[in-house]
């Protein structure tokens, strides 16, 4: 192995007193060589971002403090470097890319100015030459029309374009190391695939060392040369990508990998294919903006266009698409959280869209919803028993009975019924999601609409919630409309899938068929973009065997 560019040893970062643990990062040691992508993987709170930020001394002052360790960059200890020397290195020799490009760019400065700043700070070049260089780099990261982009403000670009601009900014001085902190997490899957390809390409061209922080094992499988796994501030395993992905040794790594959903759909489940419970016919919804007095051109965005779906008793139907595809709006139209412009929503033959809001109320208990954000979906001022009992009480169940049922339901979703009198902030994200499920079940619905129910959760928790949903739908014979952007999740959960793009359902059919033989080009593009699709997860027992016989 060549001499490492970056060598971290014994790095410990203290958390402020009163935190749930004393150190954000504890005794971490790592090495990064040139022309190498090292992925640091971990769940939220694992300390992976703090570790990455301490390399350039970018920790929030007063809250986090490096208390021990060394960070050697080409033999020089960065933790002991002067402020002036550190500034030379920042942007010049080590550059950084962040998760949310909209937040990471100054909204009031053009992209060109922000890139130019890096060059002007580190090199003494005439303005015209700096501009030339910026244009070259914008071209190198495959941004269309660099002349326009250089004059644009961040809000005028798309998310993917912004991230490319960030990457151009990081690369402009050809740094030896690029630290990328979850650079594709905020992006859609097809954009993510393009950015990952770009990062791989740049590694080859510049022979830079890339420290890539991520929570997603698919992404790891896609680009990593070597992998380091962090858990609660500690490094628990590291090795080559092949070793860690295919023969993980540490139990935590094995659990994480086991929680990644498989891409091959399981064998079809039995359900009654003839009894259609919910029929969506020709549903349209458009959002209009602009127009009016001043003659601004009216913009029309179609969130749903002639949507047709049929949900059978016991079936789980997946609505799959990228952000802005209209999948959430379509679901909200079905629940009449959003009023559709046209079409019919037939439940047992009755068109719910034609009912008045008052007439709709008794029907509501048959259609319930589970939400995405476990922190926004529970009323912070209500005890969870009240939250769960509210539905039945609205539909005439006496208070005592509703509360008794709430306690029962807490048991059903795997929580302690004694927790009923607590407030939402006392629970973790996964637990809150369980409470949300209990609230939906309290009305004994026939249909559950689940809007990205696991996308805000860590992988390991994700697995548990999916497991719970699977149990419940078997036990209560529920039909489910399952909205997700994650094709891995869709493959595991859904019996059939409708793929949406810009408000249109472009492909609709049984899950296994869609994964095996996608017909629409967009579906093919989506499937091709799934990170780590070439990687076959090791079987859990095989992993155990190998770990047993390990070195």
């Amino acid at each position: 192995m060549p001499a490492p560019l970056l060598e971290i040893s014994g790095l410990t970062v203290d958390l402020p007193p009163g935190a749930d643990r004393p150190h954000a990062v504890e005794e971490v040691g790592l090495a990064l060589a040139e022309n190498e992508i090292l992925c640091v993987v971990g769940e939220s709170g694992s300390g992976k971002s703090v570790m990455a930020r301490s390399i350039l001394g970018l920790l929030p002052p007063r809250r986090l403090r490096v208390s021990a360790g060394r960070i050697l960059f080409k033999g020089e200890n960065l933790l002991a470097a002067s402020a002036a020397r550190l500034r030379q290195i920042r942007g010049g020799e080590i550059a950084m890319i962040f998760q949310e490009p909209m937040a990471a760019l100054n909204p009031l400065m053009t992209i060109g100015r922000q890139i130019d700043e890096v060059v002007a700070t580190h090199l003494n070049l005439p303005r015209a030459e700096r501009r030339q260089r910026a244009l070259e780099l914008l071209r190198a990261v495959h941004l269309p029309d660099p002349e326009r982009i250089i004059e644009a403000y961040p809000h005028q670009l798309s998310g993917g374009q912004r991230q490319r601009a960030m990457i151009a900014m990081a690369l402009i001085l050809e740094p030896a190391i690029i630290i990328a902190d979850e650079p594709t997490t905020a992006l859609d899957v097809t954009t993510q695939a393009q950015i990952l390809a770009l990062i791989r390409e740049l590694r080859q061209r510049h022979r830079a060392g890339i420290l890539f922080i991520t929570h997603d094992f698919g992404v790891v499988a896609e680009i990593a040369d070597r992998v380091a796994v962090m858990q609660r501030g500690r490094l628990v395993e590291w090795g080559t990508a092949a070793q860690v992905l295919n023969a993980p040794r540490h139990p935590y790594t094995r659990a994480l990998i086991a929680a990644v959903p498989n891409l091959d759909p399981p064998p079809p489940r039995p359900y009654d294919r003839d009894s259609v419970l919910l029929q969506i016919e020709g549903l349209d919804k458009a959002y209009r903006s602009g127009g009016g007095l001043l003659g601004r051109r009216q913009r029309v965005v179609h969130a749903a266009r002639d949507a047709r779906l049929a949900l059978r008793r016991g079936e789980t139907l997946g609505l799959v698409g990228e952000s802005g595809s209209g999948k959430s709006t379509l679901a909200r139209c079905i629940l009449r959280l959003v009023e559709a412009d046209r079409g019919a929503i037939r439940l047992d033959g009755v068109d719910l869209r034609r009912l008045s809001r008052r007439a709709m109320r008794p029907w509501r208990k048959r259609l319930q919803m589970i939400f995405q954000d476990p922190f926004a979906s529970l009323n912070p001022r209500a005890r969870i028993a009240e939250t769960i009992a509210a539905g039945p009480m609205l539909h005439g169940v006496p208070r005592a009975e509703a509360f008794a049922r709430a306690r029962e339901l807490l048991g059903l979703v795997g929580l302690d019924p004694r927790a009923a009198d607590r407030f939402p902030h006392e629970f973790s994200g996964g637990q809150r999601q369980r409470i949300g499920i209990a609230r939906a079940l309290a009305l004994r619905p026939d249909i559950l609409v689940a809007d990205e129910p696991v996308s805000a959760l860590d992988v390991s928790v994700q697995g548990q919630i999916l497991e719970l949903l699977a149990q419940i739908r078997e036990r209560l014979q529920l039909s489910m409309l399952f909205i997700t952007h994650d094709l891995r999740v869709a493959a595991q959960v859904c019996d059939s899938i409708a793929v949406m793009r810009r408000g249109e359902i472009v492909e609709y059919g049984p899950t296994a068929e869609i994964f095996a033989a996608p017909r629409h080009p967009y579906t093919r593009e989506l499937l091709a973009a799934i990170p780590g699709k070439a990687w076959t997860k090791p079987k859990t027992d095989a992993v155990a065997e190998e770990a047993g016989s390990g070195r």
Partner: protein
Amino acid sequence: MTARLRFILGRLVQAVPIVLGIIILNFLLLHLAPGDVATVLAGEAGGAPPEYVAQLRHDFGLDQPLWIQLLLYIKNILSLDLGYSFRQSMPVLQLILERLGPTLLLMGTTLLISVGFGVLLGLIAAMRVRRWADTMISILAIIAYATPLFWIGLMLIVLFSIKLDWLPTTGMETVAAFYEGWDRVLDIAWHLVLPALTLSLFYMALYTRLMRAAMLEQAGMEYVTTARAKGLTERRITFRHILRNAFLPVLTIVGVQIGSLLGGSVIVEAVFAWPGLGQLAFQSLFARDFNLLLVIFFLSAGLVVIVNLVVDVIYTLLDPRIEAR
């Protein structure tokens, strides 16, 4: 820039119902005032001749239904037919135009001082956060923020005019001196010191506190980390990145506070006998010249609408995201 123009035009259109609303409100207040509308309009007990009152009765259609009265009132206001003040023996329009200048002078000076120093002090406090300079500035700001304007004015008079005899107590110029040219300008500036200082202190405190909070909030944003990761100096980060972003919310509040500033100038003008609209309002109040009072009320609201438009224009120059707003 078409987007900017469209934004400003949009604001202009939005101002129309507001101006109309103010006129309607004025009309309602006129009817709410005790006594017969015609006598109120003539300036109660103002010694208006009965023919004039009869003329008013006809012009304002006081014998007709309310909605016709309203339409006539709107027409009269919009054609700047504002009536005659028998108390002041002068047409109301002329009276008001005479008094507008001093008020604008006082307000403009105050705006410059309070925004300029407020932003500066807030910047210093934020850069020295939790050190003695910040503590001092923050304590002074919160005290100034709690002090009644008129009281500050009186205490400044006690200190600078009565005890030290440095500055004049009242008025806008030394009338008896008949200064001309630069001497007159200097004389007015000399008289302006105390009123402007009085009115500025409160707003300076407000903008200092806002600026400090905005700077600290912006300093925690991710784009600041990006700037740091680019190798910029802290100085450059503060002045090139944080400052401009932090100034935007302050500018918004400057717009919101214009009305309050005008209200404050009424008090200050009353304390320092500054011959502006505020003092005129004060005089008309005690002369029970409601028509004059209501016209001043309408005009001051109109002034706020105009200044707000100016603030909006400045905003579009500083923030490229107008379309998104």
